[in-house]
């Protein structure tokens, strides 16, 4: 239902217009991909430094420690440690996952999968990337200023994040960087939503869209609605720090007319809980598609999956209070949030069943994207179930702010999104760069990453249940944590394994893009969605002729199919049985 005619773009001629200030959604997608992978590396090294400190307190960080921390002979000092975990969280969430899944794949997949030649607002799209770039630059600069970068945790609760707890410009720059990133993501979201509404190919209803587009679209909706809420919170924080307002500064107890630090927590989590789903929804969509593609059968209950994702999107806006049980909200609020949180499990369980239903009686192949997708099912199962402990208020009183929480949200946000992102990279590589990644290296990468991350996050949950609280530089000043030293060491080793595993990916990725000669076919996986009807890599104008869609994205193994294909393209009519 293309609203208007889309012209065929000409290929840009100059280097600048082709690779730097490109309007082409595919180039912008790739820019976001490189940007995200770079920050994934930075955030990953920060994670290793954090883990190193926890397992071997007082030991110099190997190889680069001496270079980075010359004053302490390579040992990470406590103030740097606080900076590291703050930046690790911020970078991973806003500068690695968001650009890879939403920036790169959102940009790349939405027009291709709905049969459009570009986004509706290409200029907005380009601006969105360059604002994100400026934001990253600000964050990066903040690492090198006097007094250092923000060090109040990625949640930056006041009053620690006001001038009382963190003097110096780091925290202000942090808030400014996130505010800019919010503007960038909102621009992207406006673009994605409008594109999905108006540029779907003729004949493509909403349920004919691949589930990836569903996931990305729902994410964009959440982004458009809730990023401004974070923006408001950050503005207030910036005003508190720069102009001397007193939103988050409380006076003595029970005096009126002073600010309230808890206000920030409310604003932050009104945004923050949907943010979890902002990160995970694209991965869910992609995994739902890939499971069907490689089981060679239609996605089980695709409509129900799409609707479950939608209802989770809506529910996610109503449950944020479970992050704040220990601030002692009124009991009524606590009970309400606990119950509402639990209702999320209904749609989650339904689409989980649908994932398994897709595998059921399939004809399953196991190339790299599929093993990564199966990995997502595993880790998200664990992540989702361990959320129950944190939703019930009594267990949360014990587990809140312990490593159990850290393990849980890494399972849901980090592990499943990371694996989902890798699945997407391995899967769409031929369409993006015209070459296939090496399968053997891909499998090695998967297994090492998978074992590593389970070791890390399971270990974290165990030490968390053992009582170890978050964000502590040296846990072993506490007697009750001394027995956890071996588990902490094990977690660190797992993290190192996981970190080293990424070398296989980086080698594979760089080698394939720059040195591999062999070209990929137009449709190497045998999949019928629209992006596979065009050559690999996709040409500048995407579709020579705007396709007309005649069936859904998951038409596999229809018994009425004739010929040697077991799938059909979305442009083909379903054969009559």
């Amino acid at each position, binding site marked *: 239902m293309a609203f208007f005619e889309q012209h065929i773009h000409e290929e840009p001629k100059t280097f600048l217009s082709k690779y730097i200030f490109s309007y082409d959604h595919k180039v912008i997608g790739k820019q976001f991909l490189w940007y995200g992978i770079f920050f994934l590396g930075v955030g990953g090294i920060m994670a290793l430094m954090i883990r190193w400190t926890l397992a*071997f307190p007082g030991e110099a960080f190997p190889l680069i420690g001496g270079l980075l921390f010359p004053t302490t002979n390579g040992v990470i000092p406590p103030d740097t440690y606080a900076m590291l975990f703050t930046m690790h969280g911020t970078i991973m969430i806003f500068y690695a996952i968001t650009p890879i899944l939403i920036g790169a794949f959102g940009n790349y997949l939405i027009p291709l999968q709905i049969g459009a030649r570009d986004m509706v607002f290409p200029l907005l799209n380009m601006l969105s990337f360059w604002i994100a770039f400026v934001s990253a630059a600000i964050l990066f600069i903040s690492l090198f200023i006097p007094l250092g970068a923000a060090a*109040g945790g990625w949640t930056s609760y*006041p*009053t620690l994040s006001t001038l009382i*707890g963190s003097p110096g410009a780091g925290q202000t720059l942090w808030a400014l960087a996130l505010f800019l990133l919010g503007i960038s993501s909102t621009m992207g979201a406006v673009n994605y939503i409008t594109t999905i509404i108006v540029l779907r190919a003729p004949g493509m209803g909403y349920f004919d869209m691949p589930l990836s587009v569903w996931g990305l679209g729902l994410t964009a909706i959440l982004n458009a609605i809730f990023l401004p809420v974070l923006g408001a919170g950050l503005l207030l924080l910036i005003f508190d720090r720069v102009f001397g307002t007193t939103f988050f500064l*409380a*006076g003595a107890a*029970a005096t009126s007319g002073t*600010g*309230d*630090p*808890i206000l920030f927590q409310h604003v932050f989590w009104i945004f923050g809980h949907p943010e979890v789903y902002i990160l995970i929804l694209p991965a869910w969509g992609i995994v739902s598609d890939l499971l069907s593609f490689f*089981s060679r*059968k*239609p*996605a*089980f*209950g*695709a409509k*129900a999956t799409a609707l479950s994702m939608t209802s989770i999107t809506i529910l996610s806006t109503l449950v944020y209070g479970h992050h704040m049980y*220990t601030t*002692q909200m009124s009991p009524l609020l606590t009970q309400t949030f606990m119950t509402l949180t*639990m*209702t999320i*499990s*209904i749609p989650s369980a*339904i689409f989980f*069943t649908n994932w398994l*239903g*897709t*595998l*059921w*009686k399939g*004809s*399953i192949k*196991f190339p790299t994207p599929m093993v990564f997708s199966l990995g997502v099912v*595993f880790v998200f199962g*664990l992540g989702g*179930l*361990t959320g*129950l402990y944190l939703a*019930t208020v*009594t*267990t949360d*009183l014990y587990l*809140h*702010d312990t490593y159990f929480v850290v393990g849980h949200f890494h399972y849901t946000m980090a592990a499943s999104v990371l694996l989902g992102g890798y699945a997407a990279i391995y899967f769409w590589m031929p369409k993006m760069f015209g070459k296939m990644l090496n399968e053997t290296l891909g499998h090695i990468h998967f297994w090492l990453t998978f074992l590593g991350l389970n070791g890390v996050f399971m270990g974290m949950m165990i030490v968390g*249940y053992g009582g170890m*609280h*978050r964000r502590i530089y040296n*846990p072993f000043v506490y007697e*009750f944590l001394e*027995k956890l*030293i*071996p*588990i902490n*060491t094990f977690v660190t080793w797992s993290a190192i394994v996981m970190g080293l595993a990424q070398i296989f990916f980086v080698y594979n990725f760089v080698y394939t893009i720059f040195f591999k000669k062999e070209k990929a076919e137009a449709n190497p996986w045998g999949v019928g969605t629209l992006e596979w009807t065009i050559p690999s890599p996709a040409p500048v104008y995407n579709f020579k002729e705007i396709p007309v869609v005649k069936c859904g994205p998951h038409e596999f*193994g*229809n*018994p009425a199919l004739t010929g040697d294909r077991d799938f059909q393209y979305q442009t083909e009519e379903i054969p009559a049985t």
Partner: protein
Amino acid sequence: MGIFSPVLAATTAVNNSQMGLIEMMAPPEDISVHGNLIDWLFAYTTGMNILFFILVCIGLFGFSWVYRASKHPKAYYTYGNKKPHIMIATAVGLSVFIGVDMNITRIANNDYVNVFTKWPKAEDNPVRVEVLAQQWAWHFRYAGSDGVFNTEDDIVQLNDLRLPIDRKVILQVLSKDVIHSLYFPNARRKVDAIPGRLTRIWWEPTKAGNWDIACAEMCGTYHYRMKAHLTTYSQEDFGDWLAEASDKALQVNDIENPELFWGWQWQW
């Protein structure tokens, strides 16, 4: 070789510790009357989770194995929109919700209402303590012999909390600067210390001994050092200590020092 030395040291540490894995994984010893409620709910949820996760794994690994392409070349063509399919998906969704979620919500809610927010009243004669958190220390204040807070006979302790066993304890918590969180690992309980907003927590120790108190909310560079000591006494020992401390308080408290009077009127 230098970079491996910590690794070797850690490995030997593992070998030297005689603790079994299960023992290592156990939470800190429970010294409160109601901590077992939390442990029990945790164990119950774990049981349920394991059950459901086994189901997921059976589906995930079982289907992957049974229906691998080499063994099962032709996929079954279905959209999963037949009646039995929809019923199974709905049944799974509802069974998780009703069987697990509503169940643990009910249990948690009961505990929450009947125990954790059932604040001791004046007639229960609980030990009352006011807690002031600051970067990076805990101040504890007992009312002293007159039973009124913020007077000159108050017992003020730094990073040193002493409590009797078998008597309810109620602590009112406030922060001076940033948000902290008063964390009793051995009682399975914590509550945030917030500037400008009084929070409270109550529990009842059951065992005499020496324990740790920690700050669970990120509060700055030395967050990890914001540690206090908890000593639990038998009732007689506590009485002795209290008497001694009251005497001492009257002698050492400097009433000219306004810093001393950070307390507030007790709010029942």
